[in-house]
């Protein structure tokens, strides 16, 4: 066989292997999604989104309280976590070699690798134990702590993508450093920063462990962050481990709703990133 022929064969084999790897990587996602849809979609109804849980043994309840709880807690976590994470990320990118930036990066990496249940226990001792009661706010803080390191690191990467020449151009115009960082550099890749933030939101929206110790869960429609609060992942957990057949069906449907929410957020993140090509000219 000629050298070219051997090369073609080798190229074909390698291409085949990479395609196989892609299939293996994507298959679990498709199985999970397929399973969820198959088992969950039959239980989805308008009532599922608008009603509270029915008493055990009865049918026709919903998870409105959990949807509201997740939105409230994740929203509050964003208010706390996103400003901190984004500003810390901008700092790390703009003062790359400062000692503080190294420290922040290191702490963020350690926190990123910390199991979320540990963060839950931390929020429990810090807020729940000192206030003597579970609350949605404690859950929000736990989620915010999880978001900060993720957002810090993605923001830093996104800010680093902005060409140095833009920073110089702003400084040469007489811009102060902070204004250059926020109005020129960060704004230039704002869609990238938003993408990172949305991915972090999607991640924490599905967190269960940190909420077990903090928000606890609830059977009622709770809109005050001072009280124990329901959330979709908690509802899935409670219903899936419960003894009733009806609960199991709720769990599947709630899981499907949760994954659709996460899916929508991730899709939004991709779309935001696609529009971020502004600075690449």
């Amino acid at each position, binding site marked *: 066989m000629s050298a070219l022929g051997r090369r073609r064969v080798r190229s074909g084999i390698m291409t085949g292997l990479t395609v196989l790897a892609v299939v293996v990587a994507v298959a679990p996602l498709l199985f999970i999604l397929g399973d969820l849809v198959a088992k969950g979609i039959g239980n989805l109804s308008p009532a599922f989104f608008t009603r509270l849980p029915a008493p055990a043994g009865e049918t026709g309840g919903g998870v409105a309280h959990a949807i509201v709880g997740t939105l409230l807690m994740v929203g509050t976590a964003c208010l706390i976590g996103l400003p901190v994470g984004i500003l810390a990320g901008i700092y790390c990118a703009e003062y790359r070699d400062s000692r503080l930036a190294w420290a922040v990066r290191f702490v963020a990496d350690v926190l990123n690798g910390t199991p979320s249940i540990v963060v839950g226990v931390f929020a429990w001792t810090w807020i729940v134990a000192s206030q003597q009661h579970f609350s949605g706010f404690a859950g929000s803080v736990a989620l915010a702590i999880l978001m900060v390191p993720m957002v810090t690191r993605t923001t830093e990467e996104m800010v680093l993508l902005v*060409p140095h*020449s*833009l920073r*110089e*151009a*702003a*400084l*040469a*115009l*007489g*811009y*102060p450093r902070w*204004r250059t960082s926020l109005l*020129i550099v960060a*704004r*230039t890749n*704002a869609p990238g920063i938003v993408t990172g933030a949305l991915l972090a939101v999607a991640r924490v929206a599905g967190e269960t462990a940190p909420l077990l110790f903090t928000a606890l869960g609830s059977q009622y429609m709770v809109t005050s962050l001072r009280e124990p609060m329901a959330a979709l992942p908690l509802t899935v957990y409670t219903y899936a481990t419960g003894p009733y057949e009806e609960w199991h069906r709720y769990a599947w449907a709630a899981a499907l709703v949760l994954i659709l929410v996460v899916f929508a957020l991730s899709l939004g993140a991709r779309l935001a990133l696609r529009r971020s090509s*502004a*600075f690449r*000219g």
Partner: protein
Amino acid sequence: MADAARIRIETDKLTALYGKFTAVKGVSLRFAANQVHALIGPSGCGKSTFLRTLNRMHELSEGGWITGRVLLDGEDVYASSVSPMQLRRRVGMVFQRPTPFPTMTIYENVAAGLRLDRRVSRAELDDVVERALRGAALWDEVKDRLRASAMGLSGGQQQRLCIARTIAPAPEVILLDEPTASLDPLGTQRIEELLFQLKREYTIVIVTHNMQQAARVSDTTTFFYMGEMVETGLTREIFTAPAHEQTEAYITGRFG
């Protein structure tokens, strides 16, 4: 050299360093107002670093510091009482590659340097933007799309937009760091023509790789080599009767 003209910028034994590496060695030069001054020399000769000391951009480079003095209208720009931000509003800079701000429209780009230290009314802003764009010979090409993104302009137009952005806050001096290096011949020609207009109002210092360009546009030329200033003088004299062997070798293309 042009004794009658007022000296706008003067450097006094200016040495520029990156950490321990000396990029510019003890350069003393004077730039008269309302003239175009060209800095030429091979790559790495220190001419860009020298340029960047004039508006204190050099100190933003990693490890960048200087010894010696830079005087703008007789005042030391490195004095502790001088804010680098204020200085850079008086000494504008245009870079090698066009750097329009991608998130801003054409109008916003030109106005970018205007609202930094004081409030400017809408009418005044409109007026300054138009004058700056006319000054940069770009007005006729963009007047109907001031609200469009600056990224839709050609490279040459983007560079003229950057010139408009630089002159909008009415600086005294404009520094140009190889402003035509990334442009095609037509774009280059337009920038060169523009320099003749601009020097009526501004003092211009231009770093260029292109000796024909230096010969065409400048009143004085300074030749840098290995971080040292080898020779400075009227452009026509430097190019017809250089005093130094090295200068002659460079401008006749024997090295560099």
